[in-house]
């Protein structure tokens, strides 16, 4: 592999690494129970939970590692961890 001067890398190039393939359990968000408090967005170590156009929150399964922090910390019970089927 050729090295750039000073080992430069493009900002955010980590997106090439699709960490969603690591997942064993998948967080499933229940729109009925979600109050849009945004805590899951704040606490996800991947920063992969975002607001959707309809104003809901959803994880980006391309990167979600399935750690389960969002489900554990949701003040309600809007997020359930389900075994991944691949």
């Amino acid at each position: 592999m050729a090295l750039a001067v000073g080992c430069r890398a493009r900002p955010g190039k980590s997106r090439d690494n699709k960490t969603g393939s690591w997942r064993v359990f998948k967080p499933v968000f229940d729109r009925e129970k979600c109050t849009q408090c945004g805590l899951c967005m704040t606490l996800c170590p991947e920063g992969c939970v975002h607001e959707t156009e309809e104003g809901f929150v959803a994880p980006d399964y391309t990167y979600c590692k399935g750690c389960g922090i969002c489900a554990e910390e949701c003040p309600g019970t809007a997020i359930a961890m389900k075994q991944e089927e691949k």
Partner: protein
Amino acid sequence: MIDKNLELFDCGHRACGGCGAALAARLVTKAAGKDTIVVSATGCMEVFSTPYPETAWKVPWIHSLFENASAVASGIEASLKKQGRTEKVVIMAGDGATFDIGMICISGAFERGHDLTYICYDNEAYMNTGIQRSGATPYDASTTTSPAGKCSFGNKRPKKDMPQILAAHGAPYVATASIAYPADFMQKVEKAINTKGPCYVQVHAPCCTGWGFEGNQTVAIAKLAIETGLWVNFEMVDGKVVKAKKVVRKPVEEYLKTQKRFRHLFKPKRQDAEIAAIQAMADKNAEKYAIDIKLKKE
């Protein structure tokens, strides 16, 4: 003001699922904003964020060695100043890099009075090389270089008081924080960045792999550290403690029981004297920082 939709630490990094340090990196970049230059020391955060040619950072970022992040940052800050530029310089380093090997460079940078913010993400051991103890490892934690067994209950020394050491250097702002209280943490980072001179923020960042717990428990365990008084969130301005988070304290074993690094305190048999010694440390913290909320007796 902190923009909640701003993400400057991107997806695709290679931290373990549920890594407290990864969450800390995200929160710091959110609080610091885009006009920031980040300097990392060698360690998990450096390795998982930037396996060349990939990088999760969307702000200028540099890594040199394990021990010299403060020296590199000092040079950058001096150069920016000379050029009349206004970017902020933020160091992000682990506890090994901070409490142990980086000490000389940190002391130099703080003594010279550079306008820097030093953030130590404290996962309480050298995680990236396989869980060796550091000066930040708590009493009785089992690590690969302080293994619990027939002759030992694990790490024999209490945690080094790094905030106090940097306050003694004359740092205008020193704070401790926790990934379990993200708004408080981001506010402290913002305050450190906006305070002129060398400032220090030490954030408790549980490591599921090194401490031995499921990745979904990271935030819950960080919260328990606060609730038991084993970690105190406080702020020091010009060497004086001006604020500390108050709690209705829980017994320390509620925290200890959640992690494999303390398992030998409960199995094969409960080690009452060791647990009492750790409880005494929490009691001492509570007294020192006056964190106890006293409930009225019914």
